[in-house]
């Protein structure tokens, strides 16, 4: 007995912007800025090859949580343009992507945000679990620190002598797409962004539009604690990509799948509309699900990043 579905591109959003949204994030950044980065790199010979040197990079983030990365560097003289690759919700940060970007000539930092393997000694809510961790309180909500983990990958790259600080891009899909929007919105150093199938955008809408994990974690939580609904929705608005996207100024290429049941296409259209950059492009793969046409789309990401931060040889 479902109502006919509004065309996804016309759906819009019910996300609201809290009046103290900017002040809230300013406070988070102020708190983060008092925590030293303490960047470290350790060579990982097992994951290196003739073209790419792989390191375990690490740094300190909000709440002094130690964040691990795969840091892959081309075996040729720098300075290199750099790519931050952000991970999905349940998958481990893909070393594969780091090696591929480094083989193309970019230094690539693949981030294990808090809760992932190697970054879970101090914070480990699990999957499911992360999305609703302290979800009634924006000051201790999981993603408050996790967003900073992603943003500080920029500082990690800036600490590296082989990285060209003027040429940093960010990409990832699903949670990695949502986090790409976060990092591009919060860090001026980002010169190009390619979020795919962005998660954490239109959260209020997504929990109505889909019943798959991870968004379903919120519905599970509200089924058990219906009286906390307003508190939960109030929290997630502070973390919604739709509220952050207007700050993005770098050229941004978004891809979504028209049949995505994990991150509904409605939310992809809504966040794309909200992106503040004057150069932005939306690529819709109408027949694709949550992959959002990844295989077909990848060459466009490579081209976009090369166009806006310069190909490695330039």
């Amino acid at each position, binding site marked *: 007995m479902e109502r006919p579905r509004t065309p996804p591109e016309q759906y819009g959003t019910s996300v609201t912007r809290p009046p103290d949204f900017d002040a809230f994030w300013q406070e988070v950044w102020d708190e983060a800025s008092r925590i030293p980065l303490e960047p470290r790199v350790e060579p990982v010979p097992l994951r290196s090859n003739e073209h790419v040197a792989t390191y375990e990079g690490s740094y300190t983030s909000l709440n002094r949580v130690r964040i691990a990365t795969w840091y892959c560097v081309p075996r040729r003289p720098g300075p290199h343009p750099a790519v931050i690759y952000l991970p999905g919700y349940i*998958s481990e940060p893909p070393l*594969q992507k780091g090696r591929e970007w480094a083989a193309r000539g970019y230094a690539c930092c693949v981030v294990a945000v808090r809760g992932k393997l190697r970054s879970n000694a101090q914070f480990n809510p699990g999957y499911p679990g992360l999305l609703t961790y302290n979800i009634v309180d924006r000051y201790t909500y999981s993603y408050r620190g996790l967003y900073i983990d992603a943003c500080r990958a920029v500082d990690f790259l800036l600490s590296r002598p082989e990285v060209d600080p003027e040429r940093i891009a960010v990409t990832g899909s699903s949670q990695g797409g949502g986090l790409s929007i976060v990092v591009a919105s919060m860090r001026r150093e980002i010169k190009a962004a390619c979020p795919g199938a962005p998660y954490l955008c239109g959260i209020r809408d997504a929990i109505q539009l*889909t019943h798959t994990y991870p968004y379903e974690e919120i519905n599970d939580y509200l089924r058990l604690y219906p009286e906390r609904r307003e508190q939960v929705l109030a929290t997630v608005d502070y973390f919604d990509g739709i509220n952050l996207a207007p700050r993005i100024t770098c050229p941004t290429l978004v891809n979504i799948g028209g049949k995505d049941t994990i991150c509904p296409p409605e939310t992809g259209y809504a966040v794309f509309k909200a992106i503040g950059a004057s150069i932005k492009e939306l690529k819709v793969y109408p027949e694709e699900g949550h992959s959002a046409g990844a295989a077909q789309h990848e060459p466009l990401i490579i081209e976009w990043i090369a166009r806006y931060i310069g190909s490695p040889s330039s």
Partner: protein
Amino acid sequence: MQKPADFDAYWERTMQELDRLPVAAELELNQLRSSPEVTIYNVRFTSIGPYRLFAYYAVPVGQGPFPVRVQIGGYQSVVTVPAGSPTGHWDGGNTARLALCYRGQRHSDKPYAAAFPGMLTDGIEDPQEYVWRGVVADCCRAVDFVCSRPEIDVSQITLTGNDLALMAAAFRSDRLAGVSAAPALFYRLEEALPRATAYPLEEFNDYLRLYPERREQVFRTLAYFEPLYFAPRVRCPVRLSGDPAWLELLRRALGNQS
């Protein structure tokens, strides 16, 4: 890569090790993940080591006994709560599901938290110490667990997963109505590895790049995990997925089971 002369003995020893240990199951209601259509339990039981494992167990609300599908997850740390249809709603189906977290995966990570990448070569120098020997036992134990449940129709147990599902089916055929397997980790590695450029198979290449002198040792261990050598022991119906040409050898080894 030849079938090791003691292939059968190696696995029979492993299965005897498992048989000596009680399943010792504990079920705990997971109220947060349950819904009006399905009850989710957090389950723990014991495998070789001895090692305590975790699984999510989804039982439809209603009158059993239910058919059950035992799911062996892919090669990653996180195992998801079994859901119903692709839209997430429990599909109204009458089939219970068990989603196993094998040793090293999240929730079955104490004391052994596997690295991804890393787990594929953990202990690879010695067949007895190779972590996947225990993982195969874990998969068999998941079948033992559902067999022990009164709400399950034991004539309707199916197993699904990658190579591991087929390996476990070799030792639990008499309990299984069928197995679906999509070989991904151990099949025809001598041919697959030189062509592989992506993880997880790249883990083997990484290892051989760093330790070229251990090549013989590595393949000696991997021979105990070649799905082709498990095939003759599988006596329940098999559905294979993957490239038919690549799987043809396995299909032939399975004879009229596939």
